[in-house]
């Protein structure tokens, strides 16, 4: 075992980690937007729209993310849309995360009893006020843990983007491996970096959760 040789490549490790973070954040934000829009349409959309959304959810949740990345990277060029590796991976991961996000948001909205909405209406609140002040805060609180663990899975899942050479941490690792032939050491370091990122995000989410959801729950 020899980790010394790897010091020279710290810039590559750092750059890879930054691209991993970028990929994760893009997919999380786009995916969450898909989640909110999809959940809203599942509630209020017409039957064909709902069917389309359900199919999207089931297809993306029941096939491997790796195959989805391959399909988008290798098949879209045939349709005339040639995406660079990073963009293709970002699209694939956003769609994958979005499918889970719809279910998470939907579960959050479903967790609010109808009587609470009716109570808000009795107070003369508008539909938007009811949503903003009565439905949204407890719904967010209820699904926050599910969202954070899905985010962690997304962060780890970005490693698959290395298979289309998207330049993130795992791709950086295979580059460094090809230069040093220190396969085991390189992947041990990469695992440690992922682990550190996961721990950091979990701590961050815990702090955000404590700050954002401070009102007491009555049981």
């Amino acid at each position: 075992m020899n980790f010394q040789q790897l010091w020279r490549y710290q810039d590559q490790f750092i750059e890879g980690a930054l691209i991993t973070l970028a990929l994760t954040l893009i997919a999380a934000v786009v995916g969450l937007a898909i989640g909110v829009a999809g959940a809203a349409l599942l509630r209020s959309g017409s039957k064909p729209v709902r069917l389309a959304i359900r199919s999207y959810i089931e297809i993306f949740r029941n096939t491997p993310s790796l195959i989805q990345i391959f399909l988008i990277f290798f098949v879209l060029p045939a349709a005339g849309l040639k995406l660079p590796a990073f963009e293709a991976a970002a699209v694939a991961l956003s769609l994958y995360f979005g499918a889970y996000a719809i279910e998470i948001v939907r579960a959050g909205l479903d967790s609010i009893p109808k009587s609470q909405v009716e109570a808000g209406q009795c107070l003369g609140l508008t539909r938007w006020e009811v949503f903003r002040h009565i439905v949204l805060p407890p719904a967010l609180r209820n699904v926050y843990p599910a969202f954070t663990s899905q985010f962690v899975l997304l962060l780890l899942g970005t490693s698959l983007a290395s298979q289309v050479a998207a330049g993130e941490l795992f791709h950086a690792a295979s580059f460094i491996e090809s230069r040093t032939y220190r396969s085991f050491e390189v992947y041990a370091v990469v695992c440690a970096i992922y682990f550190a990122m996961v721990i950091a995000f979990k701590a961050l989410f815990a702090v955000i959760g404590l700050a954002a959801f401070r009102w007491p729950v009555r049981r």
Partner: protein
Amino acid sequence: MRSFGYIDLLSFVHALQWTVLLVIVALAFGGPLALLLATTRTSRLAPLRWLAAGLIQLIQGVPLLGLLFFFYFGMPVFLGIEVPALVAVGIAYTLYTAGFLGDIWRGGIEAVKPAQWEAGACLGLTSWQQFRHIIGPQALRLSLPPTVGFLVQLIKGTSLASIVGFVELARAGQVVSAATFQPLLAYGIVAAIYFALCLPLTLWSRTLEARLNGAR
């Protein structure tokens, strides 16, 4: 270059056997390990609890791809000998399964009210008997839906074995795609096969969950 044919479909069926084998290996070795982790994670001895919690955190905090590479390249470093790819990959999937299932089952055990343990103790049952006859069956029922859900995650996860050169379904897709220059057809069929495997499990998990909620 050649066109997509019968032989390619046959190669998918053949590769599917390896996907199934990986799932079986992961469950056969990872299942018992997960039970061990779940019970130590809920044990009364604090150091045991911490150890199990740390292991679960570690496994869940590293990409599956990282686990695969770590053991694929690590086994020769640890043992000084080359091991077959199936062994290295099998160890990675075993730990992956143990880490996630262990956590799911811990949740199941903790969801059973502590009074149930006490009731067992009042009847003079030993800790093991309490777990075996009172807590275990209830925890099993509670954790069945997420366990089936994890099975879907595991099946999808076996596609990563292709990256260390293991010829399972995803790898067969790559090979056929490269040989025929028809990525849409090759990956489309592969995706459809995964979908056909996973969708029934997803639906089953949902039915189980609905039944569980109905009983409450």
